[in-house]
């Protein structure tokens, strides 16, 4: 399948894959200071290789960040309007494609979170991985934990950095830990015991960290990217040296994300206009037995193995993808601020550049087979 290109007429900085969905759905938020901002819904018809699109109006302001709830049909947006930044939880209506004549839809429910007393600069609002009602909002140098009640969401906990520097964003590590990007490093806070730093990687990068992702399948493994053009994967139990590092981008990297199903596949995108698919098999959860046994073999192997076994080794070796960049996607002409894996299909991802170009791409078949077989 060739990649599908979709053009939005406005600048766009945010993209998210709807997580609680059977369909292959992506939401793209536009970023315009003066104008009616929108959230575009792209649904990929896998059989016909076609796109179905819908536009939701988001007149509240320009969208900086979109996130999706893993357990419900909800989105969270961070937007600014008249220099004030806000965050809202948006409910995606059912049957959006029911009426083809309607071009612009509205979200079923919009709840603006009460962030104003806490700060000015909101970076992201992240849904709790399992609890639909818990949200974390990164604002200035704080993380607010919201609990969505019937009427209104309430701040139930607050994490404040001792350092005055602002957080650049964050993600849930697991149900109880929230990782924030803090200048050149990352810190993980325990949400039950506020202000307790569970662990940190103080100088993960030599320049600010732009994004991070948590490996969903392998505990203690996170990926960070930053202005130093570097992708690093860390075992958080060793915060001195990364277990994997690559410098394949030529400028800042703006996003990083693990494939939820095959976490050796990592998607990064950056201001050099490229989307890179990197394989980090050596530190993925699929570092399988064959690799281990092969390593063991190599150690005590003196070369008098059976041919058959060798052949077998060769095969397993073949099937093991090598670490490094697998593929460069260069359909974008401007900076790519977001590249997201599809939540429903492990072989599809979507990227969006500032000039409004959205590209839905597929992992080349050869890699797919190599991973599956």
């Amino acid at each position, binding site marked *: 399948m060739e990649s599908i290109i979709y*053009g939005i*007429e*406005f*600048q766009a900085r945010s993209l998210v894959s709807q997580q609680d969905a059977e369909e292959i759905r992506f939401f793209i938020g536009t970023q*315009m*200071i*003066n104008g009616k901002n929108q959230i575009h819904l792209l649904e990929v018809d896998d059989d016909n290789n076609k796109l179905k699109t819908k536009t939701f109006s988001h007149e509240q302001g320009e969208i900086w960040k979109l996130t999706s709830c893993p357990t419900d049909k909800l989105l969270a947006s961070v937007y*600014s309007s008249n*220099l004030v930044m806000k965050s809202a939880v948006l409910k995606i209506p059912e049957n959006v494609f029911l009426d083809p004549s309607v071009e612009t839809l509205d979200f079923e429910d919009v709840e603006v979170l009460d962030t104003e007393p806490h700060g000015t600069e909101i970076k992201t609002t992240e849904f709790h991985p399992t609890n639909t009602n818990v949200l974390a909002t990164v604002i200035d140098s704080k993380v607010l934990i919201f609990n969505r009640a019937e009427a209104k969401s309430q701040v139930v906990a607050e994490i404040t950095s001792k350092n005055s520097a602002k957080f650049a964003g964050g993600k849930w590590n697991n149900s109880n830990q929230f990782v924030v990007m803090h200048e050149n490093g990352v810190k993980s806070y325990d949400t039950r015991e506020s202000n307790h730093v569970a662990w940190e990687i103080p100088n993960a990068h*030599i*320049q600010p960290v732009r994004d991070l992702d948590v490996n969903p399948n392998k505990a203690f493994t996170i990926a960070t990217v930053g*202005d*130093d*053009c*570097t992708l*690093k994967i860390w075992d958080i139990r060793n915060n001195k*040296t*990364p277990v994997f*590092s*690559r*410098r394949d981008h*030529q*400028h*800042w990297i703006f996003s990083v994300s693990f494939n939820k199903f095959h976490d050796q596949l990592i998607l990064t995108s950056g*201001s*050099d*206009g490229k989307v890179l698919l990197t394989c980090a098999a050596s530190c993925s959860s699929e570092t399988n037995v064959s690799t281990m046994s092969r390593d063991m073999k190599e150690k005590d192997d003196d070369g008098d193995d059976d041919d058959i076994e060798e052949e077998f080794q060769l095969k397993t070796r073949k099937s093991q993808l090598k670490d490094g960049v697998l593929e460069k996607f260069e359909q974008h*002409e401007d*900076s790519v601020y977001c590249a997201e894996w599809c939540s429903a299909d492990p072989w599809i991802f979507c990227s969006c550049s*500032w*000039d*409004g170009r959205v590209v839905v791409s597929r992992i080349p078949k050869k890699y797919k087979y190599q991973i599956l077989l």
Partner: protein
Amino acid sequence: MAERHENPYDMNSSSFDADKYLNKLLKSCNLKQIMDTEAIIVKDTQTLTSEMQTLVYENYNKFISATETIRKMKTDFLEMENEMKKLADNMKEITDSSDQITGTLQETRTELTKLTEKSALLKKLSGISSLPSKLTQLVNERNYIQAVQEYTRAKRVLELYGNQPSFKGIQEDCAVIMSNLQTILKEDFQRADKKTIHLTETGDLLLQLGESPSNLSKEMLQFATQRLHDELILLSDQTERDMIDFVDIGIEGFLNDLTLVTSSFYEMFVTKHFECEDDSFQELARSNLNEFVNKNMTAYLNLVQERVESETGDTQILLRALDRLHRRLCAMKNLGRGIEISRTGIDLIIHSVQQLCQTHYKILKDSFNDNLSSIRLTLVTSKNDGSLTELIDTLYVNTIEKVKGVLQDLLVFLNPEWSFNIKMDHKGISCIEGIRENLLVAFLRHISTVVTSFSDINSSCPANLLLVLSKLCLKLEKGGIRSLLNLVDELYEIDSENSSVLTHETELNSEILESAKTLLDAYVRVQGMNVSQMLRKSVETRDWINCLEPRSVRAVMKRVVDELTNIDGTLEELFESGQLNTTTSSDSSRKTHFSMSMQGKSQYRSTLSNFTSSQADNSLVHRLFSERVDIFNSSVDFSKVSIMSGIIRISLKTLLECVRLRTFSKYGLQQIQVDAHYLQLNLWRFVADENIIYILLDDILGSAVLRCLEKNPSGMLMEPNAVDLIVERF
């Protein structure tokens, strides 16, 4: 003459025919002639007749005297005959008498012979009877050789008459003595401290005494092994000593012994033929000997090797020692036919060459690392950008000279003084090639790896170090590698051109060039990041909403330009400037660029003027018509301009990204406009293709316009003249 014989007209001829002659005469001559001829013939006839008369007379006298003589002889012979008869009679008498005498004497002589024989036998017997005491005496005197000789001599007699009671005693006595002797000899044979030369004697004696050669040969080797083993243990305690001493002791003790044992064994068992043993015995003995020799040699050489491995001192001494050893070992090769010493000292030497290579390789690596750290220190401590060229040259020359020195040092192995010739051996050749491959080539690769590691993700090193290293690689590529390879090929007479296994120069060159490129890329990245950092901080920390109307270019822009000028200066002395598109950097050309860029901007203006209505369309159109420029696609090459472009590209891209993350008021936008214009005026001179700069600056301004709060942001831009004025004034 024959003719004359047949000539009937010749008077002297026998076939003379008087008639024919006369006829001829009558026919052929006139009267006068005939008359003359007649006269001549008559005269001749008369002469001849008188001559004949004289002759007859003379001969008659002679005949008479002869007759007289014969008559006298006849009487004399009669007398002689009588005398001879008498003599014959006498002789007969004599013969008779002689026969008589012989007959009488015959009996006496037979008796005499018998008596003589008996006396000899008696003498012998008396010797045998005294044999035991004699043997005992000889044994006591330790004159074993004599004893054995005596015994062997008597042995047969004893065996012959052994069944007679009188001899039986003697034989038994002898046997006891000899078996004692045998025991003594065996003990001697087995004793450790015995000199090997005696061993041969003893062995010989034992053989004569009827010891089985196979047993004896086995025993001999067994005990020799034991003894040599002891010596090795002794030797292994001597490893503290000087290498030469160590080898000397080994040669004096162990090798000499081994040689003696081997040669005596060879003489005793391999060259002789024993009747009592199989035909295959000699072969067996030979193979046993071989095994023995090789086993011991291996043990010894292993010991020497251990010693060599622990050797850290002077190569010369080591070599002299090895040379001595090698000489000795070569001499040992001629011990005997069929003895093969599989391992020779050459292995050892080759091994030590390899070992030395390793050491030198390590030294080279260490010294290179030291050089690097000292340069790093220099770069970090002396903040002034000093002369990088000097540093590079020092590093380059140091490295090259060090390698050359090492190559010269290793040349001692090929010194013709030595008795060994490494090159004779195929292993040796590969070892020599190892100097090239495992030392030089490996070191060059090491350089390449080490310097490349400075550009690693996790390494943080001063940008100038990257530059120095890149330049070093470049210098190596430009001729350093070739000169070193040529040197090694020349010194060691290696034909690398035609070899398929040896690393070729081009291969190394491309590797090092790759390193140089990687380092240069890293340099561009590091410097780009440094400048980026300044720009990023300046954009992030400023309040773009509430700023005042721009009166001047922001100071940070000047710092950025200064920094770039600085970098440019540093690069100037190291790299060629490369392709500058403007040959005339005069004021007029700057004006042109300026107006050009103004045009570019006005184009933007036209796009932006109807921004509110169909901004996106126009933006798309703008994109469509401007060729897609991938600012990161052009790779950096080794020219100042290219490097500078790289740095500037990264920096401006950073500025662009920073601008896009911010929101601007009218004055903020105008400030960006002023800054961009300032950059435009100051950056073009660093690069080859200023379009890149214009595109990026246009993008920056365009993004700033998009990020502006005003309803009609493009209308908020300042007049070009005003911008110009501000920038000029700055």
